[in-house]
């Protein structure tokens, strides 16, 4: 059920995206909160330091330049800048000051900027710098990790239940559809077999020509239904059938399948043009290969013009089936292997055929190439 998985994936990625956004947002908020808390806690101490420095530079100023010994304290570093943000004196190692802030963190240092009441020695900005022991940061990271982890576990559980809730109705409708198809398929088998068996028992020589024509048409129709039936049962039971791989001559099988479709082709006056080499071997399951060929030939007939041709080529490691039909629009070529996809809505059928072709080809390592020109025809090349 690929579409089910697709919408589940979609749901999950949305969910994970949202959870991550929320987590990041809350973490950022919490980080900023802790940082501001740390700032408010350390600020009085820094203001005290600033006061000491200002007291000293006021003394220096009042000495009128006689005493110019800048104060050095052990717990912090400081610098003074003038109104044009030109350095007057600095003990700092890095001198990129953010003058628009009152308190900020740079690297592992905290800086506090104080403006004295008068410009002693020209000082408009006094910068106090202390080393941040970053205990608050470690605590913050620890908190974010533990609570974020708990939150993640919680949301994972929640997401699991939500996802279950989300796909439940979808799964139910899929199951319903699958069961319906299964039941219908089984019910179809008996009547179709009965019709085909009965037609075979009719002696064509005993009846008049008009009736024979009608019965011929009935046979074609019944075979078409039978093909569809086989496709459906193949798809439904596919998982259970084990391949019986053997090396065999594909030529034999191909000719046999072509002759099986002769009646159907004649009904549309479609001719086969064959170019078949001797002894072309392949390692695969014979029944499945028959199914693959059936589907390709039946498509070539179905989508062909009245009176068209089907060219079939078989060479070592290459089989080409080419029709002179309506073709497939370029933008649809990639889609046609999907189940229930028909590249022409006006034709009947369930669109299961190409999906089966694709599955079988994949199983035996056969690559499929499709060339198609609208109104010219379609060429399917199988290589192995």
């Amino acid at each position, binding site marked *: 059920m690929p579409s089910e998985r697709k919408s589940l994936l979609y749901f999950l990625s949305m969910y994970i995206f949202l959870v991550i956004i929320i987590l990041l947002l809350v973490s950022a908020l919490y980080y900023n909160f802790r940082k501001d808390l740390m700032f408010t806690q350390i600020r009085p101490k820094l203001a005290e330091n600033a006061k000491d420095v200002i007291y000293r530079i006021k003394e220096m100023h009042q000495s009128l330049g006689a005493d110019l010994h800048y104060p050095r304290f052990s717990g912090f570093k400081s610098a003074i800048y003038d109104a*044009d943000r030109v350095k007057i004196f600095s003990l700092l190692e890095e001198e990129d000051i953010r003058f628009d802030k009152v308190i900020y963190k740079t690297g592992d240092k905290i800086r506090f900027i104080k403006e004295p009441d*008068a*410009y*002693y*020695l*020209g000082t408009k900005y006094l910068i106090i710098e202390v080393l941040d022991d970053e205990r608050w940061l470690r605590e913050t990271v620890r908190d974010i990790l533990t609570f974020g982890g708990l939150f993640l576990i919680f949301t994972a559980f929640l997401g699991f239940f939500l996802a279950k809730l989300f796909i439940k109705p979808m799964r139910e409708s899929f199951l319903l559809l699958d069961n319906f198809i299964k039941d219908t398929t089984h019910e179809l088998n008996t009547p179709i077999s009965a019709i085909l068996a009965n037609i075979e028992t009719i002696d064509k020589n005993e009846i008049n020509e008009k009736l024979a024509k009608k019965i011929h048409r009935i046979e074609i129709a019944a075979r078409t239904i039978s093909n569809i039936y086989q496709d459906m049962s193949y798809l439904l039971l596919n998982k259970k059938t084990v391949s019986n791989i053997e090396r065999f001559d594909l030529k034999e099988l191909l000719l046999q399948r072509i002759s099986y479709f002769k009646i159907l082709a004649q009904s549309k006056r479609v001719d086969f043009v064959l170019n078949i080499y001797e002894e072309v071997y392949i390692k695969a399951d014979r029944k499945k290969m028959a199914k693959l060929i059936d589907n390709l030939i039946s498509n070539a007939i179905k989508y062909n013009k009245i009176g068209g041709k089907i060219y079939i080529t078989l060479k070592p490691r290459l089989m080409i089936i080419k029709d002179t039909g309506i073709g497939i629009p370029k933008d649809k070529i990639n889609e046609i292997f999907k189940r229930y996809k028909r590249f022409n809505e006006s034709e009947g059928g369930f669109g299961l055929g190409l999906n089966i072709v694709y599955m079988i080809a994949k199983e035996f390592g056969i690559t499929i190439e499709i060339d198609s020109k609208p109104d010219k025809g379609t060429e399917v090349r199988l290589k192995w």
Partner: protein
Amino acid sequence: MVRLLITAIILVSFSKGGDIYHQNCVNCHKIYGPSLKKLFFDYLLVYSSERRVKKALFEYMKNPDPKKSLMPKEYIRQNGVKKPSKLSDEALKKAIDSYWNRYKVIGKIK
């Protein structure tokens, strides 16, 4: 001849900023004006940066305004403000530069 020599010396020395400062500002302040050192630190206290101090000085010298004076009010009431400087803009700027270099603290703090 002697007079010519003296004027020549004065002319040459006038072209040097340091000497304009000494001959003009210092000479007068020694006799009539308040301490230039004290005034410098007053200007620093109010105008902070080199650019702003120099600008304020230049404007005051060109056009002494009692409202802008940093001298005590009592002093201005008694003595009035000084006369506008007779120096050319260029010479005045040079004198102010020398004044700044004489007393600036940037580069002198230890």
